[in-house]
């Protein structure tokens, strides 16, 4: 049985004048109408309990489609038939108030998402424990970090007994472990017969969650079918034309055009073992594993460090200044930065790692404050640098 039926749906957004004078001085003039078709003739059906992925680059109509499915707005042409109640992750964190406590916000969020008071009250404990915020629930939201807020919002969104769940690019919440937890929760909802529509430009998410996928280009369905098949088509098209490449973003800590992509960054100690704890004055090797999706000449690799405590930039090293070893890139590769002595005072630091175009015009991929590293020793020092030294007296 089809739970969602979308038949010939188009959505027009109209900018500037929508038949109504926008300003007194333009009264009498015929207003210029700018029509933008965010969706064109989209038709598909989703069976009960099925998960369908929606892929496409930014502004391809993914969000518009989800909004229409949520009933937040209506199609200009066509019809949408939906059998059960929709709950969305469309508005993660929206409507939360900084002065209210985590618990009050969770309660409010659950009611806004469609639960009655009694139902919301029953779910509070579960929400708190999923978000791992039990000890913080009575504190006002303004004291929460961004990560805590997102965890709370996500926990609320998936604990409201959804029948149809719409997920819009919001799975990049918190650290990898929490993301994994969100994924397994979504999978348990799928197993329980919840119908899911997930919009993402992360192909791995689409492959993992959905059995079928549709790919939107400029508001039209380019391809629809088995998700592995659609992802293959998408990948082929992407390698054919780099303009289709999706900008890279992870929770505001990553950006880049994506021609060269950082796959993994490893911090290695003197024995080449992975570590995030360095002895003062000890060596550190930063290993950057990347893949160049197309041929790139003379990219610049950058590694810099900031103090976690005060944000002071401790060093900023790149391959640009001494030429460096980087020539032509194509396909996978590894670049290493060897720091013979890391003469930083004890405390926590974060590394930024990036790959830039040879003229510094743009970033192919740049992750900032993404990699924590700890230098052992006392963390109460006011300075950043601890050069090798000795005292003497005559």
């Amino acid at each position, binding site marked *: 049985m089809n739970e969602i039926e979308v038949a010939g749906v188009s959505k027009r957004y109209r900018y500037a004048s*929508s038949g109504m004078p926008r300003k007194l001085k333009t009264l009498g003039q015929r207003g210029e109408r700018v029509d933008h078709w965010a969706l064109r003739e989209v038709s598909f059906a989703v069976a009960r309990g099925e998960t369908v992925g929606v892929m496409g680059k930014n502004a391809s109509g993914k969000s518009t489609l989800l909004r229409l499915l949520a009933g937040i*707005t209506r199609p200009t042409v*066509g019809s*949408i038939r939906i059998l059960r109640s929709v709950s969305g992750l469309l508005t993660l964190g929206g*409507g939360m108030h900084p*002065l*209210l406590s985590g618990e009050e916000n969770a309660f409010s969020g659950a009611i*806004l998402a469609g639960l009655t008071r009694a139902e919301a009250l029953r779910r509070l404990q579960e929400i708190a424990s999923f978000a791992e915020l039990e000890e913080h629930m009575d504190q006002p939201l303004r004291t929460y970090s961004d990560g805590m807020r997102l965890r709370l919002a996500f926990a609320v969104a998936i604990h409201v007994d959804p029948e149809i769940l719409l997920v819009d690019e919001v799975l990049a919440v918190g650290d990898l472990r929490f993301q994994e937890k969100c994924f397994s929760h979504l999978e348990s909802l799928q197993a329980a017969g919840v119908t899911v529509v997930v919009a993402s430009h992360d192909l791995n998410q689409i492959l993992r969650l959905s059995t079928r996928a549709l790919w939107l280009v400029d508001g039209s369905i380019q391809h629809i079918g088995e998700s592995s098949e659609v992802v293959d088509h998408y990948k082929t098209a992407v390698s054919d034309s780099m303009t289709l490449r999706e900008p890279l973003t992870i929770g505001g800590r990553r950006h880049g055009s994506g021609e060269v992509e950082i796959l993994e960054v490893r911090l290695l100690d003197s024995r080449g073992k992975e570590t995030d704890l360095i002895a003062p004055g000890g060596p550190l090797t930063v290993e950057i594993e990347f893949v160049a999706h197309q041929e790139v000449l003379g990219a610049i690799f950058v590694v810099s460090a900031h103090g976690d405590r005060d944000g002071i930039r401790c060093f900023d090293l790149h391959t640009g200044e001494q030429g460096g070893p980087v020539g032509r890139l194509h396909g996978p590769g590894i670049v290493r930065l060897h720091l013979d002595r890391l003469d930083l005072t004890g405390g926590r630091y974060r590394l930024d790692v990036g790959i830039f175009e040879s003229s510094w015009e743009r970033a192919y991929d740049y992750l900032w404050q993404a990699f924590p590293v700890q230098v052992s020793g006392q963390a109460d020092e006011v300075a950043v640098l601890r050069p090798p030294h000795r005292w003497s007296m005559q």
Partner: protein
Amino acid sequence: MSVISGAGTRSKRPGRRRYSWDLITHLVGREFRLRYRRTVLGWLWAMSYPLARLVVFAFLFTRILPLGIPNYANFAFTGIIAWTWFSKGVSSATSSAVDRRDLLVRPSLPRAAVPAISVLTDGLDYLAALPILALFLLIGDGIPLTAVFLPAIMAVQLLYTLGLGLALCAANVYLRDVRLLVDVSMLLGFYLTPVFYDAQSVPERYRFLLYLNPMAHLLEAYRDVLVVGELPALAPFLLLAVVGIVVCAIGYLVYTLLSPFFVDEL
């Protein structure tokens, strides 16, 4: 053509009415608490605005320009709190859709709840000022028995406030001038409604104009039951209520016709 079949994508779980009730009461309570959150005096601030006005009027119209109205403080205060609810309710409802986009993008939220929450929250301010009025009445001749009729008058005022609020809210989404127009109208309306003066003191030639304003009738009804201790004449009051129902229905209709497209304009 655009069709969303059935009850649209809005939830069709059983107990929708129960849900709407929970949702609206929760949000109204939340808004009210937030309004006075982190203040020392809390909701006592709700009384400050009508009290300040009362002090000015009582001084002005009993000492400087005496209007000769008996029980002037009770007379004026009854008018001030009812007018304040009306004017604040209509103007906050007017801007509610624009201000609370975060609520309108919730799939399960009935859209009409958004302006309704604004009107009802301001209604709580009205209720918060009632103890002061009760105190004034007790100091004077006591609270008349007819005060039990108060909820009926409030219900009729709610109809007008909500009806206007819904229609103006929808208009404001498409033409943001509406909010400013409403604010100016409320300023004028304050003087054109017998809030601090008696309708009977208006020259008879113009009095019919005054009575075209439903708030003029409502204020008289409030004063009848709270200050004078009489019930308002039944037939005119029923007519007022019927017109109120019509106003509210029209407002609701305009709002429901336009609101599915609000988010496109916000």
